[in-house]
């Protein structure tokens, strides 16, 4: 049974009423089939309405849903022959990032992603999917390997952000992210990035410099966590939902701003309602984006990726004569 989000309460209440009525009808041998049918119709309508008109804040709840499938779930369902690799060869093995090689429809690829935990114990081991510098450097090592062996790279993005700790600072959190941005821009293989849950800030972007960047329908992508923005802008972290709306962090908004190349649909109610169906949707989208890239030359791939990011930004020019 899926955990209900607060905004799904009306649905949950209606559903429990239907169940109760059915039980009552069965126990007392009274025919309530008309009433039950009406309630079920109402349920379907409500469901349609609720999921079609989700606010940014509601999508944020789905993107962070405790049962939302993670990178390893998708790796298992989308690829075959996955072999996980470990470590950055410099400091350690950050479990907030997973990666290795696998086959996508028979094509060897390197796959890397943020990994959130499935329960409290797993989350502690994986630091809730918030990498330290060694995590970004592990990702970089695997991507360099892909570049050397001319394997396409697929990344899955799902993190609140780079871990805000003193040890992370001492080992160069900023440098680690920056280095990934620079080197990802220089790899001569196709890179496809998919934001599967939370795309939080620099820690997300460190796996996000691709030829194509996709987002799941209910995923979010933002420059700072809505909580962080609220505490800076409104001096009140509890206004996160308000900040989430203002920052335009949903897939639809990000698409309108020209930052992503496509939106991967989710099963009704979110990816966690049907992880296998979700994996199929992702596989189809990634394969669709990858095929044209496979026939491009190295130079074309580089230029394609450069232009993709070069053109992002909104500015204008002041209309006037001379000025100092």
């Amino acid at each position, binding site marked *: 049974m899926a955990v209900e989000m607060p905004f799904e309460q009306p649905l949950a209440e209606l559903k429990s009423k239907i169940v109760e009525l059915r039980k009552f009808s069965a126990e007392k041998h009274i025919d309530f089939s008309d009433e039950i049918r009406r309630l079920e119709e109402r349920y379907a309508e409500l469901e349609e309405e609720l999921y079609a008109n989700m606010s940014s804040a509601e999508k944020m709840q789905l993107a962070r849903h405790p049962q939302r499938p993670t990178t390893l779930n998708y790796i298992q369902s989308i690829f075959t022959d996955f072999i996980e690799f470990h470590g950055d060869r410099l400091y350690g093995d950050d479990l907030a990032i997973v990666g290795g090689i696998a086959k996508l429809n028979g094509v060897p690829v390197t796959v890397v992603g943020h990994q959130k935990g499935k329960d409290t114990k797993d989350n502690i081991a994986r630091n809730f999917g918030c990498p330290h510098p060694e995590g970004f450097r592990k990702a970089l090592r695997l991507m360099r390997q892909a570049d050397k062996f001319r394997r396409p790279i697929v990344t899955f993005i799902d993190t609140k952000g780079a871990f805000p700790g*003193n040890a992370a*600072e001492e080992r160069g959190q900023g440098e680690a992210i920056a280095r990934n941005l620079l080197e990802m821009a220089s790899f001569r293989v196709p890179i496809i990035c998919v934001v599967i849950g939370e795309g939080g800030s*620099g820690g997300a972007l*460190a796996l996000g410099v691709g030829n194509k960047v996709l987002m799941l329908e209910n995923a979010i992508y933002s420059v700072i966590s809505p909580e962080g923005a609220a505490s800076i802008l409104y001096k009140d972290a509890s206004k996160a939902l308000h900040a989430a709306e*203002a920052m335009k962090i949903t897939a639809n908004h990000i698409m309108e701003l020209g930052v992503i190349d496509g939106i991967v649909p989710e099963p009704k109610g979110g990816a966690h309602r049907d992880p296998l169906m979700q994996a199929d949707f992702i596989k189809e989208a990634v394969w669709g984006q990858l095929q044209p890239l496979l026939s491009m030359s190295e130079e074309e791939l580089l230029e394609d990726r*450069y232009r993709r990011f*070069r053109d*992002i930004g909104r500015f204008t020019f002041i209309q006037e004569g001379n000025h*100092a």
Partner: protein
Amino acid sequence: MLKDLFQKRKYATIPSERTKREIPEGLMNKCPKCGTIQTSKELEKNLKVCTACGYHYRLNAMERIQMTLDEGRIFEYDTDMISEDPLQFPDYIEKLEKAKSSTSLRDAIVTGEGTIGGYPVVVAAMSFDFMGGSLGSVVGERITRAVETAVQKKYPIIIYSTSGGARMQESILSLMQMAKTSAALSKLSDAGGLFISVITDPTFGGVSASFAMLGDIIIAEPAAPFGFTGRRVIEQTIKQKLPDNFQTSEFNLEHGQLDKVVSRKDMRPTLIKLLDMHGVKGDATYGG
């Protein structure tokens, strides 16, 4: 090449009201670190470094240019570029207007070219007084264009960073400026170009996780706070008090994040030495 000879270079000397607005003549300054009181004149003569304790006052972009380039002369690029409000973010336009009128800048950066000790360079200087030096579309675009110009002209580039991080009001577009500037620097690096990054008080967030940390040589001014996440957020996360020197230049030097800490009075001589050693001697008539 020949065309260049006939091309008239438009240089602007920074007018005094653009640099001196912050501290009008005769005003007294109290050092935020040791409390010593000095006149503005005294302070400016000492490159805005406290004569008693060596505290480096924050500089705005124009002051930085004036202290760095020969005769304070810059040929500015893209001066007419201004921010839009692509997200219709609450109060953004008002904040921009306020920053523009209080700083006489159009955004949190000045880019252009000039010479340092006769060596031609592309230079970018960020300004913390303009919305906390935040990185938005204009800052990202101007830096990217400056880097592309450096590639094209085969000039070294020097970027003075100071920033609170990415500009929230442009949300995802700000985040993407980190990728854009880094991609441009990747091209510069492939072309064999020299990039000297100078980190100043303070440099955090998106800027520290992109161009500021990608210099071939990374220098910082003394005691400049610099890191990815701010101290307050880290203290809240780890529930511990951090040492006073945490995230200072000296702390970062000790942890291998910097090449050198250089005081303001030594900055120009150091840059000249570095430019000299990279064989980027410009033609002698340049800028004359």
